């Protein structure tokens, strides 16, 4: 729907510009605070732009030593988070694609019933699963290790199976039939016909499982207890001191370190992001 009069157009630009300022301000404030010397975080009225850019705040944030908790190994948290991201993303993409192929392209008795159950499980909220999963992992001796956080990813996830199945269904039958006639096994059809044509959908699954793992808070909170094994999300809260006296410039530097990789990823893969959200939103 178009706004036609010049006045209406100008008005809309003004509203959007004002809105943009409001939406960008918190991020600006985070970065501005992260570069200030500590005195300037406590000025009234506040100082908008730091008098000098104190990049050493980032080095301090990474090697932050809090009296109550001792040394916070922020670099370890980064390594742990990346390791989990790699394990979860690869597991989710590989297993969900294989499973989706079984649902989309092969005929076998009970397939539709099982797919129906798969869809129904998407309705169950995480709190229902939380307690028995913890009990299960406790019996397996996995609590306190990374295993509860990545092993399930290798056994498929309902939503991603659904998404990839819908995508595989749109690939013309003739392509895979031709490959079968040429003597390809199903696994070869999957690898050489279906996967190359499904890159956009696989990228969406990879991207969203990466974001999920990077952001996940409750999973690490439940299963991890050794502070050296924490993820960035779980570790970040330690910068904030419950008793007051939080060093806000360092906390904002640490928060920036957690936020910036995601924003960079967004700019690198903007189309995948927007398509993915539209895809999961409308077809989901």
């Amino acid at each position, binding site marked *: *729907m*178009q*706004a036609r009069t010049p006045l209406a157009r100008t008005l*809309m630009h003004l*509203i*959007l510009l004002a809105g943009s300022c409001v*939406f*960008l301000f*918190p*991020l600006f*404030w*985070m970065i501005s*605070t992260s570069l200030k010397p500590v005195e300037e975080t*406590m000025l009234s009225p506040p100082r908008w732009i730091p008098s000098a850019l104190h990049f050493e705040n980032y080095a301090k944030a990474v090697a932050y030593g809090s009296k109550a908790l001792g040394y916070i190994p922020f670099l370890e948290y980064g390594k742990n988070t990346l390791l989990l991201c790699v394990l979860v993303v690869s597991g989710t993409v590989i297993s969900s694609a*294989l*499973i989706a192929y*079984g*649902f989309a392209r092969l005929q*076998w008795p009970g397939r539709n019933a*099982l797919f129906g159950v*798969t869809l129904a*499980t998407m*309705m*169950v*909220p995480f*709190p*229902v*699963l*939380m*307690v*028995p999963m913890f*009990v*299960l992992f*406790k019996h397996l001796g996995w609590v306190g290790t990374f295993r509860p956080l990545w092993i*399930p990813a*290798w*056994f*498929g*996830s309902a939503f991603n199976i659904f998404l990839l199945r819908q995508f595989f269904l749109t690939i013309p039958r003739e392509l895979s039939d031709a490959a079968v006639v040429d003597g390809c096994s199903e696994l070869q059809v*999957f690898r050489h016909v279906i996967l190359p044509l499904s890159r956009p959908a696989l990228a969406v699954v990879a991207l969203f499982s990466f974001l999920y793992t990077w*952001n996940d*808070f409750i999973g690490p909170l439940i299963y991890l207890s050794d502070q050296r094994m924490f993820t*960035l*999300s*779980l570790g970040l*809260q330690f910068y*904030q001191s419950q008793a007051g006296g939080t060093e*806000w410039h360092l906390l*904002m530097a640490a*928060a920036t370190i957690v*936020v910036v990789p*995601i*924003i960079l990823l*967004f700019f690198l893969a*903007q189309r995948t992001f*927007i398509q993915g*959200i539209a895809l999961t*939103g*409308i077809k*989901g």
Partner: protein
Amino acid sequence: MTRFRRRQMWAGLAFVSPWLVGMGAFLLYPIAASLYYSFCDYSVLERAYHIGLANYADLFHDRLYLRSLLNTLFYAGLSVPLGLALALALALLLNSGVRGLTVYRTIFFLPALVPMVALAVLWLWIFNGEYGVLNVFLSRLGIPAPGWLTDPAWSKPALVLLSMWGMGHAMVIFLAGLQDVPVHLYEAADLDGAGWWSKIRHVTLPMISPVLLFNGIMGIIGSLQFFAIPYIMTPNGQPARSAYFYAMYLYDNAFLYLRMGYASAMAWILFLLILTLTLLSLRLAARYVHYEAG
């Protein structure tokens, strides 16, 4: 069975075999076990023993439980409609043919990318009572500045405000829906002399009503499980449990007090609440939502 059919069957089962294990171990078993625990007294350390409906009966007399439930309904009741309205308004503005659509879309979407824990600590700083920048703005505008996270009357509205900042997903979904509305409908409305508002009211809203329904249901499901942000920003629901939410009490019961059975009963009530609200939305939708034929 022909050789071809048999080959397909074995291949099919082989491809889905990881899911047979995954769904069984990480979905179906936990669902069944959770339902069973909800009728038990269970602390993980000792064996579960059956106590019938006692957990469910206790919940209705548990004042902290009712408190957390009401807080959650209050939060959902404000944040879902306000978030939808803001997301839809921005999407409508962006879809009006302004130049720089992708730039604006990026700006309004960026906050939705901020990981929840980073979002929580950032807004702790913005809401901060002593040096918080939000109250600096408010006092410059001559608006009396509330104590936000330290005032029981303002802690929930503060969290609603923060949730509106992150409504980017809903906005992008709305925008995709708006871009699918056929141009000829607006042209026909123009011929009928329809104004700006009546085009929105009679063309846009009916055409995107399925998207509105989807975003609404996702909003309800998400806000009823609100956890990480208040866990960090308002630990223990302080001040005065005014920001103590359902999922926080559930978590505390399970992992702090080791009342696993009680926590499971809470989880099932939450599930039923989500199901009821979803079905209600769908019922409502059957009356108002317009699905384009084909």
